[in-house]
């Protein structure tokens, strides 16, 4: 490896820096440095009127310096862990529902003719053309108590003698909107994977005695594992930190970590605790990503 670099010409070295430099700088300024600031902030005291307390204070009576108070606070009360677990469950449910819905769709698109394939992919990414908040507001109208959907459901429930329900401001509404937002992120990597499968492998499986069911579970499904893992990561990671959907469509009990963090910074103005929650969320996500990467490394051993 080093040998190759030794032989590199000066112009090639400049090109390499020109190409990798801007994204590196971007990540350094907007991810690495803020990350360090967040870690640092999580070990400080909150300022009297928001922000952070000073590191050194002239008056020893005021709060100053470093502390692990926020972490003690987090682990001292189960209510925060509960929000974490609830967010985790919501994100996991979103991922699984997206997977179950996206897989047949991606398979259908991948096995369609070339022209139809492009049209269908266009339809899949069409929701991206409008702002997702507008979509969420649309769901508020669709799921609203006066809207046809909720009314119809309640009439049907009434037939069976079940009490009417409210869709809006419920976990169901949050779930529906989360799936709506993240479905394309599952379809895209799955389609990209399935489209690359060599159709001759299915011929070979059939030739060797596999029926349609066996061809799917023995060939298509195991070969699509990298796509499943990629899609799941793309849905799960942003979903666990989501705050706009539960804020707008969820009830008071449906808050997720994202809402909690947002509340610390903009509501109670407790920056250190907000930072702590953000750091713990990041660590939790990294843990999940690490586990998934390990699993997919085992599944994708042949790649």
């Amino acid at each position, binding site marked *: 490896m080093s040998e190759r670099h030794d032989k590199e010409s000066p112009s090639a070295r400049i090109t390499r820096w020109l190409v990798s430099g801007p994204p590196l700088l971007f990540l350094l300024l907007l991810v690495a440095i803020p990350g360090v600031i967040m870690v640092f902030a999580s070990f400080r005291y909150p300022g009297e009127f928001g922000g952070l307390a000073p590191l050194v204070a002239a008056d020893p009576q005021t709060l100053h310096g470093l502390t692990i108070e926020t972490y003690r606070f987090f682990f001292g009360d189960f209510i925060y862990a509960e929000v974490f677990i609830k967010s985790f469950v919501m994100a996991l449910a979103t991922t699984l529902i997206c997977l179950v819905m996206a897989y047949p769709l991606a398979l259908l698109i991948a096995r369609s003719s070339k022209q139809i394939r492009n049209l269908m992919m266009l339809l899949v990414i069409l929701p991206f053309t409008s702002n997702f908040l507008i979509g969420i507001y649309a769901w508020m109208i669709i799921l609203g108590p006066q809207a046809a959907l909720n009314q119809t459901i309640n009439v049907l429930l009434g037939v069976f003698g079940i009490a009417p329900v409210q869709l809006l401001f419920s976990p169901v509404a949050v779930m529906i909107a989360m799936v709506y937002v993240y479905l394309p992120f599952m379809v895209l990597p799955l389609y990209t994977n399935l489209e690359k499968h060599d159709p001759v492998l299915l011929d*070979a499986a059939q030739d060797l005695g596999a029926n349609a069911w066996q061809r799917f579970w023995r060939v298509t499904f195991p*070969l699509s594992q990298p796509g499943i893992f990629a899609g799941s990561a793309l849905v799960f990671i942003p979903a666990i930190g989501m705050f706009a959907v539960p804020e707008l469509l969820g009830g008071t009990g449906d808050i997720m970590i994202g809402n909690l963090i947002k509340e610390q910074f903009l509501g109670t103005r407790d920056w250190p605790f907000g930072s702590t929650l953000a750091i713990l969320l990041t660590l939790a996500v990294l843990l999940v990503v690490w586990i998934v990467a390990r699993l997919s490394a085992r599944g994708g051993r*042949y790649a």
Partner: protein
Amino acid sequence: MALLELRNVTRRFGDFAAVDDVSLSIEAGEFFTLLGPSGSGKTTILRMIAGFEFPDAGQVLLDGKDLADIPAEKRPIHTVFQSYALFPHLTVAENISFPLRMAHREPADIRQHLKDALEQVHLDAKAGKFPHELSGGEKQRVALARALVNRPRLLLLDESLAALDAKLREEMQVELINLQREVGITFVFVTHAQAEALALSHRIAVINRGKVEQVDEPARLYGFPRNRFVADFIGQITMIPAQVEQVGHGHLHLKVDGLGEIVTPLQQGVAAGDRGVFAIRPEQVRIGVQAELAELKNHFSGEVLSLLYQGDVSVYRVGLTNGTMIEALLPNSAPGRAELFKVGAEIRVGWRHDAGVFLHE
């Protein structure tokens, strides 16, 4: 009864008849080859036997039973694909035992068959490897073992050696012949490489534009092509326009404009006055000075136009006095001597009276 029979099978794609009224009969234990240029329909025939395509007309019969309603996965017929189509997520052992698992065989049974199959193709040491860790020849052997492991009635090979380099291909040809003899399973091989077809097959069907041109043993196909397509497609051949002058006892007397008479073996269905070509293989043509060739019935004057030195042999192109060009192949058996005759040399060419064949227009 033949093991596999195709009766007037036709397969159309739109207006194009990829396979046009083909009838073939393949015997049990045979190494049968479908030989033809690309696009001739040979692969479509193979896919109909395998069950990936279905005939628009005609029947495919196995042991006298029509296969029309039997899907590919239910046919006792396995295929070795051109690209091998090994499952990349399965090891060599898992690939080979795949058909056994699909058939829900007992685990002990699977282990035994797998062990035998691995030994048969000398891959015992590679059982735990993945396809991407194998060489081309090893992949080929895994594909063969996988297709043979639960002993199909028929093994189809679709251009199976095409992806290998020349030297490896020759080795695999020998292995394939030995394997077929060992397992005794009927092989149907599809190729566009005529040399390969001649080397491997018991019988060859030459396919052109969806039709069968000729079905014969390799030596007969090479020696007695039925028409100009077969003659031209298999091996090298020189064709000289000629007319049948006289049908004699055991011989045909052909007249070639500006050259004279050629004597060639008697053939059925040829009458005096027929027009066509006289076709002769380069290795049947001899070159020499007058005295050496005097004993041959057919001999003519010519001039060496070009010489292609190929190591083991040299190919001479000789211009005859009437302007036709004839190819002659001479073995370079004398060490260090490549050029027996120089370009431009005046020489004599000749061939025996039982060489060559007359083909109708």
